[in-house]
């Protein structure tokens, strides 16, 4: 497809997608959102770009990128197991760290968030892999 409107829209919309994806990721724990939904949105940003230009070209440019994303995401997931292990609790227990920041207010960081970030990257990678595996040269 070669549509100027779509291409122009994609240029700006993809950042909007990514911003919302990160938002969904961060608010995830007790509210709607989370790593999976955020990941799908962020993956869509790239896919949308691909629809506007040429998915195959993007596939060629990104090459092994999806696999790296998956590997990195899974690695972060494994990292998120360690805080609970180091504290001697059951594996995968949530460990929370509360930080008070001057402007933002109280920030809750924890191993579930780390887990979500891992899921986020894995899902982006998987989405891209899905789309790319069904793409062919035009």
């Amino acid at each position, binding site marked *: 497809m070669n549509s100027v409107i779509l291409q122009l829209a994609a240029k700006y919309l993809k950042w909007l997608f990514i911003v919302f994806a990160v938002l969904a990721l961060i608010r995830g724990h*007790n*509210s709607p959102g989370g790593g*999976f939904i955020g990941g799908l949105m962020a993956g869509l940003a790239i896919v949308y770009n691909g629809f506007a230009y040429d998915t195959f070209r993007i596939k060629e440019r990104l090459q092994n990128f999806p696999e790296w994303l998956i590997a990195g995401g899974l690695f972060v997931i494994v990292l998120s197991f360690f805080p609970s292990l180091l504290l001697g609790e059951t594996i995968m227990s949530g460990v929370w760290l509360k930080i008070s920041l001057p402007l933002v207010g109280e920030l809750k960081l924890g191993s579930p968030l780390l887990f979500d970030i891992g899921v986020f990257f894995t899902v982006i990678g*998987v989405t891209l892999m*899905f789309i790319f*595996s069904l793409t062919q040269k035009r």
Partner: protein
Amino acid sequence: MEIVLAIVVGILYTAGVYLMLRRSILKFIIGLIFMSNATNLLVFLSAGLVSGSPVFVDGEKINAEVMADPLPQALVLTAIVIGLGIVVFTLALKYKFFELTGTDDLDQLKKTDN
């Protein structure tokens, strides 16, 4: 509302089974999607429908008796993800098979049977 959704589940299963029994592989995959959606809806219905009482709302205390059951929703989310992966894999497989043989006819798949 539950009765309507139950009927929808039935219709989806019927459509899914019908499509799965067709000869085309693509129709088979569409049937698979129908059946997987019907199953997801069934799991979702398993705790009953509760309107207006979402599960986790920060800062408000809601009586657990009237709250929607979160577990089936979590299960359905997982099941949807798995279903998505499987459908994509099936499509990719079908695509490769079509590239290799140029056929979409399940009746042609008799070589490995006996």
